[in-house]
């Protein structure tokens, strides 16, 4: 199973590092990262593998949201099924 992490906020040093560390602590494996910085705004989409996640997925969602608040970013973790349902027939 996979999850999508979206990270949006003002650019700063170490955003990817802190998000990656948060993933690693929960046993979430990063499969793909795509990020841009536009007008000082940092946008990142991360596709992750959650098969070996070591906390309940809802707790991971909360931890990521808390990390976002701490760093002044908006971080949302969402199960990939919602994207597949909406965009794949």
């Amino acid at each position: 199973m996979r999850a999508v992490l979206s990270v949006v906020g003002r650019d700063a040093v170490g955003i990817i590092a802190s998000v990656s560390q948060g993933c690693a602590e929960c046993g979430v494996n990063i499969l793909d990262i795509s990020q841009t910085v536009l007008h000082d705004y940092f946008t990142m989409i991360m596709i992750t593998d959650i098969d070996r996640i070591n906390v309940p997925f809802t707790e991971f969602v909360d931890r990521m949201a808390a990390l976002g608040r701490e760093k002044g970013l908006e971080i949302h973790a969402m199960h990939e099924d919602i994207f597949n349902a909406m965009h794949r027939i």
Partner: protein
Amino acid sequence: MIDRNDIFETLNMIREERLDIRTVTMGISLWDCGGDSADRVAERIYDKITSRARDLVKVCATIEKEYGIPIINKRVSVTPIALAAGALDRDGMIKVAKALDRAAHELGINFIGGYGALVQKGFSNGSRELIASIPEALADTERVCSSVNVASTKAGINMDAVAEMGRVILRTAELTHKKGAIGCAKLVVFANAPEDNPFMAGAFHGVGEAETVINVGVSGPGVVASAIRRAGDVDLTEIAETIKRTAFKITRMGQLVAEEASRRLNVPFGIVDLSLAPTPAVGDSVAEILENIGLEKCGGCGTTAALAMLNDAVKKGGVMASSHVGGLSGAFIPVSEDAGMIAAASCGALTLAKLEAMTAVCSVGLDMIAIPGDTTAETISGVIADEMAIGMVNSKTTAVRLIPFGKPGDMVTFGGLLGEAPVIELPRYSPSRMIHRGGRIPAPIQSLKN
């Protein structure tokens, strides 16, 4: 791999355009709760609802978090109480209403529907008692919703019930006057009521339904309005295509949530209701969609045509996205619950006559309309009769939810999702003599399909 643009589109729909699951409604059969002791019946109903729907709110909260999609309301609908508790008298019915309200509080759901009766052809004893109890039941409870089906294409219109509902609406307004006649916001009169509708106030668990079932109502007027705005200067065929594509995506999300809720609660999946349900929040308005199609103001000439196209395109887009589509499935036009409709009614662009025409081509009816508090019961019955006739002849659901309160020009405020509405004027001439004739308007010729 999931496409980056698709991810951004979904995130934008949820964060910026207010896409959400409007309701996950669990239908619960109360056929096995009957009896002739009101206390026993009320206790059985309370126990059954609180045990069957025990995990509803918790499971929905988990789904909401895992998929990142807001689920605004969790609700329960039950077998019409006039049938499930048909042996009780008026006071007994009120005890049941209070038990439903306690169950709703215990479960943490915001509404429970099904305090109602099906009287399109005539009254059973239970139906008479229940209808008589509605004003008090709604005044004494907070979360109970009531609906009465008084007409159908197959049976015609029960004009005795129409006359009675005029009086019931007025009495409900009187008893809840101090709270802005809020009781009337929880009372719907139907023609061709759907038995699997997840939306309030009209939800009930139909007689042919399973023991328990999960029905889901999607929403997303803001997403459709934005898609039309982005489409730019294109012709109406292209606008219809844009609405279809958007409705498909919205419904797929509803289907996913319905399947997940059904699996996790171990309750069969019933239907997804494709309705575009507005809220008073800016950017979540069906009127705004119509205005983005190209109307200066909702209610002006062209409104009925634009709404007909919208309603049809929503169904065409949504029907392929779900394995079972049901309920009302179309565009809702509640006046008080839609910022664009409130604005249109306030500036006089939207009149009762135009609203009535609009109900002929969309999914509900004269919904959440504030009318003068001194309106007579006969006039209210006349409004109901007209609306029921539209439903009966066109083989579609129509409904009436009127709030008699204040005087023309006043603003009635209900708060929350129920919003606020300007009091609009009704025609001055009375239908009194017709209403007092009573009897039944026979079923139309199109009912004879066999």
